[in-house]
């Protein structure tokens, strides 16, 4: 388990999300963690990161955490307040470097379910559906996925519903389906570690463990087999400055990060 000493797990997740982003790139963000991670990146190592919201907010300087990806905060001091057609067309045309999503259920190829648990037509549990997730995962050059609680229930062998494309059923499947070339999942972040995808099989592969987490925990908390690298790294830790920004500037009410 992650050692919760200077920070809690949610703060660590937000920091880890920020750490995989890069300066002078575009990031198309979903609600919650992805927004917080992008805000932190912008306030630390990536001041020229351009945040894109699906409803039309392009390149805002976020004054506080937006509750929705369409509210006025998402175009506060932005370079443009346009439309969904504009944001989605720019994405489809290749202007998005990172897509960034939260998810509830994922399989070994990075495919995501946010539509339904159980049968589609008479569901056991109905979830919100794709929203812009299918679009950003189809169009973005590199997709980052945050799953706050990795477990056998969230890392599954078979999704109840494939809402959003990862590598579908493996190598070349995206291209075969007609999705844009050289796109797909890039990083998966959970409370246990950071993952990438094996080049050859397009299967989930561990990159680093968070401080205090063991390989056994990673293996125990997945229904599918996670590929292991020759050398497992340790995930970077947030500095006091990162934590101060998260707590004081980004989520002072502790809405996503907790208290």
């Amino acid at each position, binding site marked *: 388990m992650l050692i919760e000493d200077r920070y809690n797990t949610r703060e660590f997740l937000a920091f880890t999300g920020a750490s995989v982003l890069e300066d002078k790139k575009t990031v198309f963000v979903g609600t919650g963690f992805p927004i917080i991670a992008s805000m932190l990146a912008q306030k630390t190592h990536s001041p020229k990161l351009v945040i894109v919201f699906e409803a039309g907010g392009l390149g805002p300087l976020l004054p506080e955490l937006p509750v929705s990806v369409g*509210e006025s905060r998402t175009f506060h001091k932005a370079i443009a307040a346009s439309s*969904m057609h504009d944001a989605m067309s720019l994405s489809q045309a290749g202007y998005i470097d990172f897509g960034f999503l939260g998810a509830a259920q994922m399989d070994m190829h990075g495919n995501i379910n946010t539509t339904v648990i159980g049968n589609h037509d008479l569901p056991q549990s109905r979830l919100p559906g794709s929203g812009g997730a*299918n679009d950003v995962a*189809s169009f973005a050059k590199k997709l980052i996925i945050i799953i706050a609680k990795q477990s056998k229930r969230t890392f599954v062998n078979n999704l109840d519903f*494939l809402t959003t494309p990862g590598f579908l059923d493996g190598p070349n499947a995206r291209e075969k389906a007609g999705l844009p070339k050289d796109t797909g999942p890039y990083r998966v972040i959970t409370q246990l570690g950071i993952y990438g995808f094996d080049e050859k099989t397009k299967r989930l592969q561990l990159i680093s463990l968070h401080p205090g987490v063991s390989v056994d925990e990673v293996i125990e908390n997945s229904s599918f087999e996670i590929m292991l690298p020759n050398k497992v790294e340790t995930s970077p830790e947030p500095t006091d400055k990162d934590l101060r920004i998260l707590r004081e500037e980004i989520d002072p009410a502790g809405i996503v990060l907790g208290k």
Partner: protein
Amino acid sequence: MDIIKEGKGELLGWHDPDEAREWVLQNKSRELKDKTMSAKEAVSRFVNDGDFIASGGFGHIRVSMAIVYEIIRQKKRNLAMAGKTAVHDLDVLVGAGCINKVEVAYSFGHELRGLSPASRRVVESGQCKVVAETSNAGYQWRFLAGMMGIPFIPSRNLLGTDTGNYSSCKGVKDPFSGKPINLIPAAYPDIAFIHVHRCDIYGNAQIDAILVEDFELSRCARRLIITTEEIIDNEIIRREPWKTAIPFLVVDAVVKVPHGSHPCEMPGMYYYDEDHIAEWLNLSRTQEGVDNYLSKYVFGVDSFDNYLKLCGGTKKLNYLKNRELLKEPMVAPWRK
């Protein structure tokens, strides 16, 4: 073009493009005339049982709640709704029993606030059916094809997924690139309602915010009700015509409703009323709670002004303005 794949979702609101043109010719007046009326009149004239309806804005932003409440008050039934990121509006309408079909891009959730107890309960019991799935771009481009007067528009999303399999799209081989491509069918909602910052009596409307999908939705919907914070002179529209987001040609009714998006946000004017949304989320855990909410805030009031008084009146509205302008701190009363 060979069809490679066919989604099994129900095709809502599609018309042959010539039929669509003919309908416009017969039904949409080109006359610059006063279209102002009450919400009651607009809904009774333009919303019919069984219609395919679409609400403007996005989630909890710039939503025509005055029309949503009026649809409930007039007990419209068997409506199909575009779940084009339709959240609070859809949740309340489904809870009230007005909707029995939804095509979902994003519904049944309130983003950071969590899932929607009311509409999920109705869907999980089978009383309201999800007849098709799509994505936000998928819905947006249904409207785009509709506004362009073409039967479909090609896209590169939805491919390879169950979202595509349960959509009303078809997959074909693109005759230019030879690659598989998705075809998104046009949508022509029977009625749309969109809340704007200001418009003239003819319906020429300005929106001081992201347009989200409203540029396209306003033009593809067969009937369009505009609710507005303010009515301005046509002269002001003509002075800065580049600000017109929606031209009068596509508008059927203009309804003046200050604060008409409450409890949702109106960018630049007022923020979400989180207390009110939290009250709905809490009450709507049971059908009895939904009924109590509706009898208090919808059936129990005869005007939007009286509804606003019930929600906290001037004091609350001033707070929501200050909150929108970042002069008040963030609150999250729905947080467990």
